[in-house]
Every structure is written in C-alpha cells, then in structure tokens.
C-alpha cells in the first residue's frame, strides 16, 4: 500500500483552487435552478485546505481502506462537496453540470455510493458525527489509523443528535480519530441563527469536553493552520469553529439568508463569476 496522499500545496495554490470551486458552485446551482449556494460558499476555504493539505486520501482509489473519511453532515452543501471531489480528481468536472437532474449521480443531497468519494448519505441534518463514531471505532478495532473529518453547519447544531455524539466522542476516547469542523456562518434556513435558535458553538463543544480551535474561515492561511493544529495529537477531541460568511465571494449572496437555498438567475450568475474571478478581498 502506498503512503497516504496529501497534496501539500501552497496557500496561494489553495486560493486558486478555491476560486475554481466557488465558480463551480454558482454554475451548478444556476444550471439546476435549485440547490444551496450560501452554505456551500461559506465552507470553501475549509474544504479546500482539508482536501489538499490534510485529508489522507487517494482519488484514484476511493475505497482505499486506510483513507481518512470526510463526512458532510450538513448534507445540503453538495455544490461545495461535488466541486471539491471533482477538482481533487474523484470524477470529471463534466459531471457537475448534471447536478440535481434526473439520472445524475450528483443528487441534491449526497447519496452514499452514488459517485466516488461520497462517504455517507446526508440531507437529514445532525447525523454525521454519529456516523464518524462508528467509522472511527471500526478503524480502531481493525488497527487502521484513518481519521474522520466531519463538517457541521451551525444551524445543524440545533439537532439533539449532534450533542449525543459530541458527548460520546470523548467518552469513547475517539478524539485522536475524529475532528469536527463547524461552519459558523450565522444563518440557517429561515433566517439568522440568533433569531431562529441561538447557539454558542465554541462554548458548547468545550462544555462537552472538546478542545476548540477558532479561526477566520475565509483566511486560507489561518484555516490551513487551524486544521494542522487540529491534526496534532491532544488529549481531547478537536473541533475547529470557522467563523464564516454565508454566500462568501458573491456580494449579493453574502450574509443574505435568502440565498440559503435559492439559485441565481442568468444576470446574477454573470456577476457572481466576475466577482469570484477577482478573489476574496
């Protein structure tokens, strides 16, 4: 077995990849005229840093048993997820244009085994951290050193199951194998989290026995640093809370709850592509 494959690319390169991923996201959602751009754009830096510099994976062998697992618990962020998988080489970027259409493997919410690299079925929030516990426990039983990286939304933290799992990770001593990442964009489906249901992700995870690493979720260097820190062995499980902006990179989507699950029209798409090309300011 070859060694784990981490691309190890520079922060500048990561930023270029992030631009491509953002462009895929808005194009996919615009083509489908449905989907979730806001929470896809907010997670881009986390996803790109993870997939190129931290996730031990081999896109040519998606079933490699020792691979790290990326579990998209906020399963609606598929434009983000599929773009990452395609850019990383799991499948052709040509597939992206079929997103959400009848017969495409790129389902509205990720469907396990539908396309290479999809590690769990999602779409009903709150389930990823529990799934990770099962994966991590099995890896430990089988003597494999693979890890699980779980991406959660901050609205998703409303689900009780997240906290059942958060409590269980330190209890089972799985902190060396499970890393949680919270995309703290402050907006959920119906509006701003502070009016829908207030959460305090960092305090809540700390209260459940986790080591919390906070970062600016759109500063690529800071994100990359935070994920490196999260990988270092520590007696507690690690949770990266990334402070992000929903819709980041497209001015009219930024911090705008209505783009949680709404597609841009043709004019808006052109604006979005132009802005994304300029990069984050």
């Amino acid at each position, binding site marked *: 077995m070859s060694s784990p494959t981490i691309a190890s690319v520079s922060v500048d390169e990561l930023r270029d990849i992030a631009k491509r991923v953002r462009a895929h996201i808005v194009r996919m959602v615009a083509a489908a005229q449905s989907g979730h751009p806001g929470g896809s754009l907010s997670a881009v830096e986390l996803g790109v840093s993870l997939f190129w510099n931290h996730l031990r994976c081999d896109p040519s062998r998606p079933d490699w048993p020792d691979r790290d697992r990326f579990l998209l618990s906020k399963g609606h962020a598929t434009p983000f997820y599929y773009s990452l998988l395609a850019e990383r080489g799991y499948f052709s970027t040509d597939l992206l244009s079929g997103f959400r259409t009848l017969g495409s493997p790129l389902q*509205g919410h990720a469907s396990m085994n539908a396309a290479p690299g999809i590690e769990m079925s999602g779409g009903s929030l709150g389930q990823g951290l529990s799934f990770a516990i099962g994966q991590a426990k099995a890896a430990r039983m089988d003597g494999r050193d693979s890890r699980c990286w779980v991406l959660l939304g901050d609205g998703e933290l409303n689900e009780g199951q997240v906290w059942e799992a958060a409590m269980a990770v330190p209890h089972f001593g799985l902190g060396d194998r499970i890393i949680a990442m919270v995309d703290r964009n402050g907006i959920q*489906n119906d509006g701003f989290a502070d009016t829908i249901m207030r959460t305090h992700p960092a305090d809540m995870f700390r209260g459940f026995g986790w080591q919390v690493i906070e970062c600016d979720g759109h500063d690529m260097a800071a994100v990359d640093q935070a994920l490196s820190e999260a990988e270092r062995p520590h007696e507690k499980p690690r949770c990266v809370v990334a402070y992000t902006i929903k819709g980041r990179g497209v001015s009219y989507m930024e911090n705008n709850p209505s783009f949680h699950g709404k597609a841009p029209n043709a004019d808006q798409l052109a604006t979005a592509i132009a802005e994304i090309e300029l990069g984050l300011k």
Partner: protein
Amino acid sequence: MSAPTPTSAATREAYPFGLLDLVEAGVDVVAIDADLSVSTMGYQFGEKHPDRWMTVGVAEANMVGIAAGLAAAGKTAFIASFAAFLPGRCFDQLRTSVAQPKGGLNVKCVGSHGGITVGEDGMSAQAVEDLSLMTSLIPFDVIVPADFEEARQAIVAVGKTTRPAYVRTGRPKVPAIYGRDYRFEIGRSNKLREGSDVTLIACGILVEAAVKAADFLANEGISARVVNMATIKPIDREAVIAAARETGAIVTAEEHQTTGGLGSAVARVLAETIPAPMSFVGVDRYGTSGKWDELLGYFELTPARVAQAARDAIARKR
C-alpha cells in the same frame, strides 16, 4: 385575511389560512416550526399572530415534546416540517408523548413536501413512508388533501377536534378541484366521477391523475368511478364497500409506497367485507433528484399507469 380560492396552488399554501380560520373561530392555536417555516408556509401565520407561533430551530424531536406540553396545558398545538422529518426525525416522541396519553394529545402534525414531488432535493427530502408511520400511531387521523381548498378545510377540521392528526401537504402547485362550496369532513370521501366497471381511489396529487385516467378509460368504453379518499385514517369504509359492490374492481393511487398508506387501508376493508380484484399504484423505492413533474413520469404516477392498473384489475374480475 380571508383565504383565496386560487385556480392553481400548492396544498402547503393553505396551511396558514387554515390556522387563521381556526383562530378566528376561537380555537386556542399555537403553531411551531423547525427552521422550515418558509417551506411549510407556517411563517405566514407567524406574521399575523407572532404570539401564537414559534420556531425551535432544526430540532424536530424538541418541537414534538413542546407541542405535547402545550396540548397537555389545553392548547391546540400545530407543528410543521417536511414530511420526511416529521414524522421521520421524531417518531418516538410522537408515539410516547402524543399518541400514548389516553385518547392522544391535541397535537396536529403538518408534513409538507410529501411524496416525491419535492423534486430536486432528492431522496432524503422525499417522504414515501410518512403515511405508514402516521397510520401506525393509534389515535391519529391521517389526511392527504388534493387541492388548496381541501387542504384549508382539512386544517380547520383537524383543529376543531381534540384528537391528534397528521395532514400531508405538497410542494408543487396543483389545479383546484374544489370551490368554496365544498364541505370536507374527516373520514368522508368525495366521489368525483360516477362509474360502474372499476373504481379509482386516489389521494393527494394522484386525484388529478385518476380523473384523467377515467377519461382515457371512457374512450375505451370503460366506465370508471373516481373517489378522492383524502382521509386515509379513519378510512371511509362505506365508500370502499360500495365501490366493490357496484364496480367490482378497485385501483388505489398514492404518492407513497403501497405498504401502509391508502392502498393498504382500502385492501383491508375489502378483505374484511367484499374481496374484489385490486391494483396498487405507488412508489416502492426511494426517490431521486429531478424536476417534480419529470419525477411523476419517472415513477409512473401517471394517468396512463392508473388506467393500465384499472385494466389489470378488471381483467381479474371473476
């Protein structure tokens, strides 16, 4: 705000209007959403009656528990989410906190985006098991309205009982079948076409397909009765028995798997009274992404399939 009578509307759009009617009628309503109020349309009620509406975030199980507490304290509690998550994410809370207290507590569940016509979101958001789950909760009434007017009246009807109930609403706009003169009653079906060779019993979005199927069949000289069976539980036994006696063959059509929903309920009545050949139209697999009208074709929830099911049932007559 009095309810409109749109020629085309989604059944979910009727939910807030039903709630407003109930408040006007003096019912002590409290409605709760779980971060899908923009989809269930519950937010429109919240705008009119902020004191009677709340959102609990993405926390369906908590929502059910809160509703049970409200009901135990004398309120008429309505809760809403996608039919995939209500009952999907909170079945045990519905069972223990709502259904098992003697007679059931006064909690009304509204599952929006029922069936596969959610469309592009795909299988996780497409409910093909909500009717099975909800008919299994003993004190619950279970209703699948076919158009806006019927949905509004169903919300009002369940709000005026003290029993727990489940009302399934849909995402896409569907043509109006009924006007203001229609009178929905829990447990009473509505005959849309008279017929003597076969009866097409449908609910929800399949009612329209059944009517079109009856037209197809009429061209072939087959006389098909069409019954809108909006109440799955308690089922209108008299209408089913009459259909079997007078037409001798039955088709059920539903946007749901054929186990545990409309088809199963009708089959049971037939088995206990006048067995008649029967065909089931439904969705016996998980959904997939696609446009909602495309999916109706993909899963063969079509007039052509209902008509074929009718021919099959008729061929099995003895």
